[in-house]
């Protein structure tokens, strides 16, 4: 008596409409990219400089009051939003205030923070400033560079590793799947305008790691089956491999999602964006290792003479299957 997510034997045909799936994935990537170009991302202060202040008070929060208190200071773009979380106490009212980087300053200004805190204290006497973070424009520019560098390096390193362990077609398939996952994650952050900060980059890299984990497991089986069934068409080998690993793929996604969803619900609002990115990434990553990475592999074809040239190959009905 066991809990099973999929029946013992599955023979879904994942590649019946593989061009359709590839097209769909491609389209989603384009949509994500367009959203990124049109709307951009809701960058946190890590990436664009400025100050965020997290306030807490026992009295009911009125964003308008906060705004009126800060307007006379002339700080430019100020965004005030109330934060909700099921973990908060009844009298815990939390707001996030984001102030743009002040034009004339390279470094962080203590006076500005003092002014803001003073102004808010006069309207909400019991207000507490539970966190105050400022990043100067000089650093934020560098942070963007290192973040982009990190993602590119990670994908590059993976490309090389898989190329060494498998074949270049596998490496390319895996990397396209990774780019797909990263783009779709950036896309949803752009679409929903969730705050995009340094932690999200960490999440992106973890998604890269996870999605790869999934892809590699499928590829490993493909490699094994290619050796085992030398005569089978590639599409069938891929299908067989995915079906054989399907139970594992879903089990692992399930346990990981269980862990992530409990963090998403119970982990507090501070890391919600981070955990959301990872949850989304696990779903997208699982999808992409089947419908993107393997489909690309099918599209590119694979060299079949793994160990030694196969003498039976000539005259066989599948002889030119990977041409």
């Amino acid at each position, binding site marked *: 008596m*066991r*809990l*099973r*997510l999929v029946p*013992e034997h599955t023979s879904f045909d994942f590649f019946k409409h593989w061009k359709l799936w590839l097209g769909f994935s491609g389209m989603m990537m384009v949509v994500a990219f367009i959203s990124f170009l049109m709307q951009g991302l809701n960058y946190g202060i890590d990436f664009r400089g400025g100050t965020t202040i997290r306030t807490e008070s026992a009295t009911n929060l009125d964003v308008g009051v906060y705004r009126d208190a800060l307007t006379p200071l002339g700080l430019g773009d100020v965004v005030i939003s109330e934060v909700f979380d099921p*973990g908060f106490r009844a009298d815990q009212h939390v707001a996030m205030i984001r102030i743009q980087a002040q034009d004339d300053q*390279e*470094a*962080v200004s203590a006076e500005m*923070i003092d002014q803001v805190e003073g102004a808010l204290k006069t309207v909400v006497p019991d207000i507490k*400033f*539970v*966190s*105050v*973070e400022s*990043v*100067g424009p*000089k*650093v934020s520019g560098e942070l963007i560079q*290192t973040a982009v560098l*990190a993602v590119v*390096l*990670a994908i590059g*390193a*993976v490309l090389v*590793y*898989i190329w060494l*362990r498998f074949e270049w077609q596998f490496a390319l398939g895996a990397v396209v799947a990774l780019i797909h996952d990263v783009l779709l994650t950036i896309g949803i952050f752009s679409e929903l305008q969730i705050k995009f900060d*340094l*932690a999200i*980059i*960490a999440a992106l*890299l*973890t998604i*890269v*790691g*996870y999605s*790869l*984990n999934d892809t*590699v*497991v499928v590829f*490993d089986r493909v490699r094994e089956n290619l050796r085992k069934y030398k005569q089978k068409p590639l599409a069938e080998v891929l299908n067989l491999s995915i079906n*054989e*690993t399907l139970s*594992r793929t879903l*089990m*692992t996604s*399930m*346990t*990981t999602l*269980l*862990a*992530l969803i*409990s963090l998403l*619900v*119970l*982990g507090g609002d501070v*890391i919600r964006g981070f*955990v959301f990115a*990872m949850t989304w990434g696990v779903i997208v990553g699982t999808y992409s290792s089947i419908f993107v990475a393997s489909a690309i592999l099918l599209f590119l074809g694979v060299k079949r003479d793994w160990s030694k040239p196969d003498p039976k190959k000539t005259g066989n009905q599948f002889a030119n299957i990977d041409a």
Partner: protein
Amino acid sequence: MLQFELWKRVLIWAVCAAGIILSLPNAFYNRVEQANDARAAIEKSGATPEREAQAARWPSYLPSDLVNLGLDLRGGAHLLAEVRVADVYKSRMEALWPEIRDALRADRASIGTIRLQPSPEAELRIRISQPEGMDTALKTVRALARPIQSLTGAGSTDIVVSGSGDIITVTLSEAEKLATDDRTVRQALEIVRRRIDEVGTREPTIQRQGANRILIQVPGIGSAAELKSIIGTTAQLTFNPVVGRGSDPDANPGVGNKLLPALNETGTYYTVEAAPVVTGEELVDAQPSFDQNGRPAVSFRFNTSGARKFGDYTRDNIGSPFAIVLDDEVISAPVIQAHIAGGSGIITGNFTVEESTNLAVLLRAGALPAGLDFLEERTIGPELGQDSIDAGKIATGVAFAGVLIFMALAYGLFGLFANVALILNIALMFGLLSLIGATLTLPGIAGIVLTVGMAVDANVLIFERIREELKTAKGPSRAIELGYEKALSAILDANITTFITAVILFAIGSGPVRGFAITLGLGLITSVFTAIYVTRLLIVMWYDRRRPKTIEV
């Protein structure tokens, strides 16, 4: 077939036991932390019964290393400061001028009179009245250049001298600038460390970052502004002879003098001689105290050479004022009443008690070689940190329970084996984190939760493989063996690729991101170990005992 040599069994259990023992202190975090603090206090300032009792709350034969909590969990202040390295070039050039002047004087016959021209910072422009002697002059000045003692700058000298027309230009060479920058940042780092140690908070992190930045993290401090007031001031203390006093900020101080504002009287300016009698570098001690009228003050003591200079000066100048200057502001300008021979004195100004305490700290720790710009500052309140820890605990607990139940339902007995391995995995992870003194951050907790989810992956791979091998009916023992064997390449490839991303995160990231990379990377290592060795050993032990004819995975 399913054999495990004895030494392997012993090693595996030893590693697990070490993991549990090393991670144990974290289960009693507060108690161990208090005991550690008490022990440190006993070491530093002797035992008291109270401290002994605190220390005894955690047995000394058990390990007491804890996972450090990052600022986002404990609360505290984080600053990223950039050292204004160029500040030092200016003083270097100022110090060079007398040397060059003296050297050139010897050549007066061929180069004529020499005069310092107004020059941009970090540069000296010297005009000679007989341009025909330029070659001689250049040769003389170049003879003053010193070779650079550093690895990268080997073979080059510290100054670059060039001449055009009747002007000699002297600048620092690029190699010397690099060497100076490095020295300046290292000095600044040391001073910042001393100042923070003086204040005495727990486990501050003070690190150099990049070429000329310093990262400072102090847990438990109320705000970054407070931290800045301790480390942000240069605290260059000098005692200069006073030439005059006035209220014109644009007055011409005359050659060799400078005009400085008074600290507590706006609109008052002192003209003082630029060369100080004594500087703060010659102080050996400074303490907050009170003057005879009960106002807060700072008392200080000079070292021997400082005391002699100060004594000689006060003896020769009774009745005239001298200025106590801190960072180019005059704190006070008392009139010398008597010969001060002992080398100690007192600084009064309109201080508050807090200011005098801070000033004493700054003077004791020494002056920063250059100013600091703050590029990044973060303050996290302790309440927020506590909320995050609480939420993290609940989430981790629920995630853990969920995965355990799920595995047991899906794989039965084998699932239970995997669960034991998972628990050991967490213990090993915390043990390792404590051992290397890693810092746990909020994303780090997420890393652990993710590891919990992904750690079972290796076991899932193996179990699924065993199921498949069982179908071809080679007998349970062979199936188990083949399952492990064939799943290995997938497990390794999958984990190595993830590990690569963790390494890149660690290398490039900073702060919380780095914390996440550490937990993720360590989690991968421990999960591969527990999945491959621990569950296998458990299964082998069970199989040896029961010898089942069939198994169900």
